[in-house]
């Protein structure tokens, strides 16, 4: 082995703690990349495989009652590869020992077993016997929510008649990966379930023999979805068809897409930030580390080693550090990625998971870290090798220090000597101090980016559940009902107040951009469900004109006062032009609000409702639940309290887990940076500090001199760290904003304080570790050698 390589190994052993700390910083960056991109790709691949294997449909439509003979005509639409017609109905469930009313999405199964499209993955049990009116297969999340297995029994009110049902199988379907009940914004495993049963049985329950109420299409690869939808709408129109739509508007797909998009966006936003911050910090650290080797580099030059030989020696040193970092980061990133993939996989109830290995990721992470490290080292090496060896072997010339302020200010006398030394040292190396400060500021900032989701989610909850939708429950009807149903509901036991809610499906358009949304008609004086505008004030719905989600306004590029075109997709299919009256602050989906009377006029109908918002007396809800369960016109009952709980448990948990992982990685990076800083400062000033010890300074005093500087820089670093963190969080929030869910950037003082505390604790811990080295300073060596 070459002697320089022996030196390399011994240097690495000597600097093991620092090497490891730098390795951790690199690892933090690489791990973020590997985990975020890896889990996003794996989940995406899983979804694709799931969709393909279980033949997820491309176009979805519903009708009131369409004859089966229509199926052949639908199949003739150019571009259609397969047609799956079935019966789909919402019905209330009555589950033993479960007081709240739950909703079942009933789907018919062909007598032959598996449907043509949206096939079931049978997790447990079997498919129902053909024609058996009792046997059902239920969705896995619902089964888990109630602890149901094959053999469990519950009942449902199908078309006004209570039926006993027996579970024979537990299944998963690509159509209901994200299963949301009517009126809900979050999946609720206990109050919403998908129930498959024999077509014969369901048809007879709903008098739909020889007819269907839902149709799914698989398209050929080169088919135009838009054209197929138009033709399908035309065919279904006379059978009470509701506008057909593609996957984009299929609830489960859209939500899944949004969640995966969010992961994907996160993987494109956070890892680059982490990796760049880590790279910058490594660069900074290595620059100083190599600069410390000045005398040895001078010696090697004196002995006749060429610049290239010397540079490659140090680059090897760096290669080892980067290798340690990349190895640690890849290992941690891979296992965290698998953990995240499993977490989301469980959440979505995927029947299987596809783990994508992406060697390219490791290479990218390694290359970026290596590049940053080498640039840092070369910067320092260039400074040293350009010196004549005779000069390099000498310690650097005494640097010029000066008073911080003219002597008449006499602040010198007000500050202690260690403070003075620290301040002059900072003033003497403004660039180094600035970079060190920036490094610590970046450590604070990545912590803020990792922590900001917590505040933001709390704000989302506050606006959604406590400012806007303040009802306790929403009762949805199977069909629209006349307005007087509100009075009936208000008289039910336990109901304190009831407000009508009418929703109509529309296409909203400005120029070439259009979206499918629901317009919600609400009474002017609605107090339960309020409209909160972008300034977070409750506003009265406009008499004529729309209040639309701020996100929708951005997508359409409209402001208050602009006009949009509305295609009504229910009742009179006509197109109207309406003014935008206000932008609404909301975080889920794209919504539009209008005055209830205006909606009636628009639909040319008597005032009607699809659902009723209720305020409840918590003491008598049981009686209400019993009553509602017996109402055949009710399709479902959403409970805000449950919704919030589910939100916290599902999305909240996912986001918090991700945030927690990133916070951990950010903390590791922060500690690595601060520790290296302290160690290098010690090395740079070892001689000076040892001399002070010789002069009679105690260990404590010497340590104080070293750490006052670190403390000053760490404190100075916090405000810029907050600012950078806010900027990064803003970038992240903007990247994550989607049509289905978005957040408003909120950063509480507590978050800033927590981020800073983590960095400062890292500083204190580093100080404690480094202090042990101060205690070992070799006093005699200073006296024996030069200076």
């Amino acid at each position, binding site marked *: 082995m*070459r*002697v*320089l390589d*022996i*030196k390399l190994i*011994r*240097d690495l052993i*000597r600097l093991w703690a620092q090497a490891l700390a730098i390795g951790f910083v690199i690892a933090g960056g690489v791990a973020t990349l590997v985990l975020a991109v890896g889990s996003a790709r794996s989940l995406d691949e899983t979804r694709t495989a799931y969709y393909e294997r279980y033949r997820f449909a491309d176009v979805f439509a519903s009708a009131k009652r369409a004859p089966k003979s229509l199926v052949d005509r639908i199949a003739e639409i150019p571009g259609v590869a397969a047609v799956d017609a079935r019966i789909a109905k919402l019905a209330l469930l009555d589950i033993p020992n479960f007081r709240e009313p739950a909703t079942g999405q009933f789907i018919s199964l062909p007598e032959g077993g598996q449907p043509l499209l949206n096939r079931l993955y049978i997790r447990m049990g079997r498919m129902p016997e053909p024609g058996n009116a009792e046997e059902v297969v239920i969705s896995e999340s619902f089964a888990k929510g109630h602890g149901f297995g094959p053999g469990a029994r519950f009942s449902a009110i199908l078309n006004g008649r209570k039926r006993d049902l027996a579970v024979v199988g537990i299944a998963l379907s690509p159509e209901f990966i994200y299963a949301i009940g009517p009126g809900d914004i979050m999946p609720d495993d206990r109050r919403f379930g998908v129930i498959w049963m024999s077509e014969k049985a369901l048809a007879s329950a709903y008098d739909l023999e020889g007819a269907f109420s839902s149709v799914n299409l698989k398209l050929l690869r080169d088919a135009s979805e838009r054209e197929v939808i138009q033709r399908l709408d035309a065919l279904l129109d006379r059978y009470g068809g509701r506008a057909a739509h593609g996957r984009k508007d299929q609830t489960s797909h859209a939500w899944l897409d949004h969640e995966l998009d969010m992961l994907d966006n996160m993987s494109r936003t956070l890892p680059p930030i982490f990796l760049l911050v880590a790279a910058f910090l490594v660069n900074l650290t290595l620059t100083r580390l190599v600069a410390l080797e000045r*005398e*040895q580099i001078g*010696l*090697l*030059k*004196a*002995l*006749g*080693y*060429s*610049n290239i*030989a010397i540079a490659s020696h140090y680059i090897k040193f760096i290669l080892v550090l980067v290798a340690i970092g990349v190895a640690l980061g890849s290992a941690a990133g891979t296992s965290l990625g698998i953990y995240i993939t499993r977490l989301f996989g469980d959440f979505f109830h995927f029947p299987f998971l596809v783990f994508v290995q992406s060697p390219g990721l490791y290479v990218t992470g390694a290359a970026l870290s290596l590049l940053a490290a080498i640039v840092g080292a070369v910067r320092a090496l260039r400074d040293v090798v350009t010196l*004549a*060896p*005779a*000069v390099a*072997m000498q310690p650097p*010339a*005494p*640097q*010029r220090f000066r008073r911080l302020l003219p002597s008449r200010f006499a602040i010198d006398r007000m500050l202690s000597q260690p403070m003075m030394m620290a301040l002059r040292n900072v003033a003497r190396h403004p660039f180094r101090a600035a970079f060190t400060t920036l490094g610590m500021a970046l450590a604070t900032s990545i912590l803020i980016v990792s922590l900001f989701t917590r505040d933001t989610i709390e704000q989302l909850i506050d606006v959604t559940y406590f400012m806007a939708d303040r009802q306790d429950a929403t009762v949805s009807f199977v069909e629209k009902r006349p307005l007087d149903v509100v009075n009936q509901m208000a008289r039910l036991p336990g109901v304190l107040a009831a407000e009508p809610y009418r929703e109509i499906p529309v296409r909203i358009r400005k120029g070439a951009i259009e979206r499918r949304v629901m317009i919600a008609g609400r009474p002017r004086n609605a107090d339960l469900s309020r409209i909160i505008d972008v300034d977070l004030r409750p506003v009265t719905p406009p008499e004529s004109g729309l209040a639309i989600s701020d996100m929708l306004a951005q997508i359409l590029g409209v402001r208050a006062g602009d006009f949009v075109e509305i295609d009504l997709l229910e009742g009179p299919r006509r197109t109207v032009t309406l003014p935008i009256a206000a932008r609404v602050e909301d975080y889920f989906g794209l919504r539009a609000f209008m005055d209830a009377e205006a909606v009636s006029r628009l639909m040319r109908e008597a005032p009607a409702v699809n659902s009723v918002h209720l305020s409840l007396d918590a003491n008598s809800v049981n009686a209400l639940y019993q009553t509602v369960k017996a109402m055949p016109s009710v399709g479902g009952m959403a409970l805000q309290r449950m919704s919030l709980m589910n939100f916290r448990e599902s999305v909240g948990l996912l986001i918090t887990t991700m945030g927690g992982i990133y916070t951990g990685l950010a903390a590791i990076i922060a500690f690595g940076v601060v520790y290296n800083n302290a160690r290098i400062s010690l090395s740079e000033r070892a001689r000076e500090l040892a001399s002070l010890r010789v002069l009679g300074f105690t260990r404590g005093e010497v340590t104080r001199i070293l750490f006052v500087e670190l403390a000053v820089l760490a404190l100075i670093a916090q405000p810029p760290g907050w600012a950078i963190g806010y900027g990064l969080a803003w970038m992240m929030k903007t990247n994550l904003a989607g049509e289905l869910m978005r957040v408003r950037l909120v950063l509480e003082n507590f978050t800033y304080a927590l981020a800073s505390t983590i960095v400062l604790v890292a500083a204190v811990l580093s100080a404690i570790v480094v202090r042990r080295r101060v205690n070992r300073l070799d006093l005699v060596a200073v006296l*024996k*050698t*030069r200076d």
Partner: protein
Amino acid sequence: MKERIFNAHGLTKTYASGEVEVRALRGVDLEIWAGEVVVLLGPSGSGKSTLLNIMGGLDRASGGRLFFKDLELTSLGDRDLTMYRRRHVGFVFQFYNLVPSLTAYENVALVTEISEHPMRPDEALSLVGLDARMDHFPSQLSGGEQQRVAIARAIAKRPEVLLCDEPTGALDSKTGILVIEALLRVNSQLGTTTLIITHNAGIQAVADRVLFFADGQISKIRKNETRRAAAELSW
């Protein structure tokens, strides 16, 4: 007639050290002959180290010309100076400048690995009387031993010139004498031209010639008719 190893004309050197400008050499003319032992004497800052550094290719002159045999050092670039040092020059510094993470043997091997016809590291160490301490790290060696490792390292590549900057400056007299002995042994066995900077006037007795420095110039040159052995020295 012996071969002329160094030939300098009007060498000058100006340093910017911190904020101060220092004129370290103010025009030095000099000739050094093969196999000579030359001692450079003079107060601190008189220019001895600067001259030695320039002759060793560790630093560059600000003006004047310097030849190593036929090679004009003052015209060489960094790369050629590196090759010059690697092939022809051995250095011994006051503070040894050993690599702390390498053993005595490895510190010598550091040089033999990049030389063309080196002696074996153990051979060089035995020449300075350190065969028994080969596997010790610098921190396990006394000052004198460290300095002898530095000498072994300097001579292992069989250089034509050995430049020693205060080789005994950090040592007591007894250890210092051992070091001088090692230098003279190398000079007599290998015929290496040896230049020694010292503050120690006692050492001048071992030289063929003594150059006296003052204010960046050679103020006087004295030739010793007879060289004394190191063992006869004391200070």
